[in-house]
């Protein structure tokens, strides 16, 4: 997994609540058996004017000029600014894969859906929860300043607004923070506890054998 430590980037504002994983990556692209290559189809139905299909060349498709991803001032954005309940809906990990493949490393919102939030950490994306007021102020900043950028410092849990160097602190679960900073292998960590798992299994096999058939 890609590590996350310090990240500086342009902010792209997605000003709508309840953005679901069907919108982030529509189902026809879920037919892929790979983890990569989803970037060109991120937000496909909002981003293009025609219907996207898995094996189509996306470079020749008509773009929706009104959609924020197609506006040149956000071209190199790597931080996504969103509203409440971002990532709701299906459990598809293709959603964070698509965001990462496009180039997003950090998502800021007042709240996230649980499964999506979890999936981000498994893929080197940092989701940050800020209160609605702080999110509002960032939206206002993006609106005001072309190229509006942030520096996200995960070890210090600090966001710096580069235009005026103001800082916003954020909270994060200690385990998830370490996992991102060190790029930890979850499975390896759990397998280090294999004896505990075996002990548990042995006891449960005796107590509730029907769960093991």
């Amino acid at each position, binding site marked *: 997994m890609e590590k996350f430590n310090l990240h500086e980037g342009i902010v792209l504002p997605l000003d*709508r*609540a*309840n953005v*679901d994983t*069907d*919108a982030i990556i*529509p*189902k*026809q692209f*879920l*037919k*892929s*058996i*790979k*983890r990569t290559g989803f970037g060109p189809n991120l937000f496909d*139905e909002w981003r293009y004017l025609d*219907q996207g299909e*898995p*094996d189509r060349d996306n470079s020749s498709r008509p773009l929706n000029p009104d959609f924020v991803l197609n506006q040149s001032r956000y071209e190199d954005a790597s931080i996504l600014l969103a*509203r*409440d*309940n971002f990532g*709701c*809906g*299906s*459990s*598809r*990990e293709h959603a*964070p894969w698509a965001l990462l493949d496009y180039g997003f490393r950090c998502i800021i919102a007042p*709240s996230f*859906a*649980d*499964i999506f939030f*979890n*999936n981000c950490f*498994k*893929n080197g994306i940092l989701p940050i929860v800020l209160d609605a007021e702080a999110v509002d102020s960032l939206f206002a900043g993006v609106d005001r300043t072309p190229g509006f950028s942030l520096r996200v410092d995960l070890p210090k849990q600090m966001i710096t607004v580069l235009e005026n160097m103001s800082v916003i602190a954020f909270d994060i*679960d*200690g*385990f998830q923070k*370490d996992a991102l900073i060190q790029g930890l292998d*979850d*499975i390896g*960590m*759990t*397998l280090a*506890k*294999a004896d*505990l*798992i075996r002990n*548990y*299994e042995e006891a*449960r096999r005796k107590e*509730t*054998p*029907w*769960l*093991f*058939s």
Partner: protein
Amino acid sequence: MSGKTLYDKLWDQHLVHDDPNGTSLIYIDRHLVHEVTSPQAFEGLHLAGRQFWRTESTVAVPDHNVPTTVDSATVDDPVSRLQIQTLDQNCNHFGVTQFGMSDPRQGIVHVIGPEQGITLPGMTIVCGDSHTSTHGAFGALAFGIGTSEVEHVMATQCLISRKSRNMRIRIEGELSQGVTAKDVVLVIIGKIGTAGGTGYAIEFAGSVIESLSMEGRMTVCNMTIEAGARAGMIRPDQKTIGYIEGRPYAPKGEMWERAVAGWAELVSDDDAAFDEEIVINGAEIRPQITWGTSPEMVVDLDEAVPDPSQETDPIKQEGMQRALEYMGLEPGTPMTSVPLDLVFIGSCTNSRIEDLREAALVAKGRKVSPDIKQALVVPGSGLVKRQAEEEGLHRVFIDAGFEWRNPGCSMCLAMNADRLKPKERCASTSNRNFEGRQGQGGRTHLVSPAMAAAAAIAGHFTDPAGL
């Protein structure tokens, strides 16, 4: 000290280890696998040279991509086909049980689990699919996971997790005639919102929940995720036991007796503390229809499309406006005068035998309106299909002008050939009305099977009781 909730008990029973870093290692009894969210997990396992921890815990089935047209034994779409073949190969390679495309037991993963007795009370059950919450109807702790976690469960039989908070939603009283489990859960989502359950495990209780059949309870738990919670559950009772007894994977003989005795403990203690408790009067629930692009955008059948200008929260107001534009609806239009193009009866929410009976009861002796371009009935599994045919339900549907299909997810998410065209409007018994969910530009209204059947007959929404 206060007592424990059902969720607390399930959690404690599966706790392998509390790590000093604040996370817990939770043991997983049952792992369900389908073709869409597993290939990258199998690949990850392969690349790392890791093995399955316990293949017997795992059952796989292709459902999302499979064609449902009765005459197509093969998958025409090469990309879908590759995904289904990949599941085949992976199951063969790792020795995982699979109900493949030609197996009569094949169907939607959340339908076949309970149907086979693979789902049991007291289990932890996971699947790379958010509607895994369905299995909570049996008093199991069941929730959806991402593909990285699928791989983690394959390799370790565990998940690294954190305990959720406890919420109980009690539906008390009695339902009115013609009100179904689907209406109950839509009312809940309308009330608490699509993020209302975020961070919680929800227990559904109260006299209305107790009165529901297992199918109805599954419908309620299925849509827990639409209320923001990963897991929803209902305490097991005699109905639960009656449903499971004799199913192929259910325990037998002395083992059965022991299991049933154990399940009696799966109940929230009287003095258990919930972080949040909500009570809804069942008698006030009316048949529900969603009008927008989120399951919380829901109204009673006899209400009108809401007016965004009445909404004070500017973000919500904008969301409503966008939804109305997408749905092609005007504020103030009575829901019963909204004309429809298609009807879809199916999905892991409403494709079980009871759902089909409910729809057939409405369709019997009637004809699908000529205004409806297509009305699909897609049973949840091969066995549901067979049972429906034994009961003659397929005749009722076919005679009325519905298409009788093979099992699969079908138009619930339109990964196969069944999908809406832009601007087509569909009454659907599925669980998500997101933009593009049933096909790009398609417009989805979520309803119960009875309401969907009534809408097919009338060509617009109408009270099934008034047909």
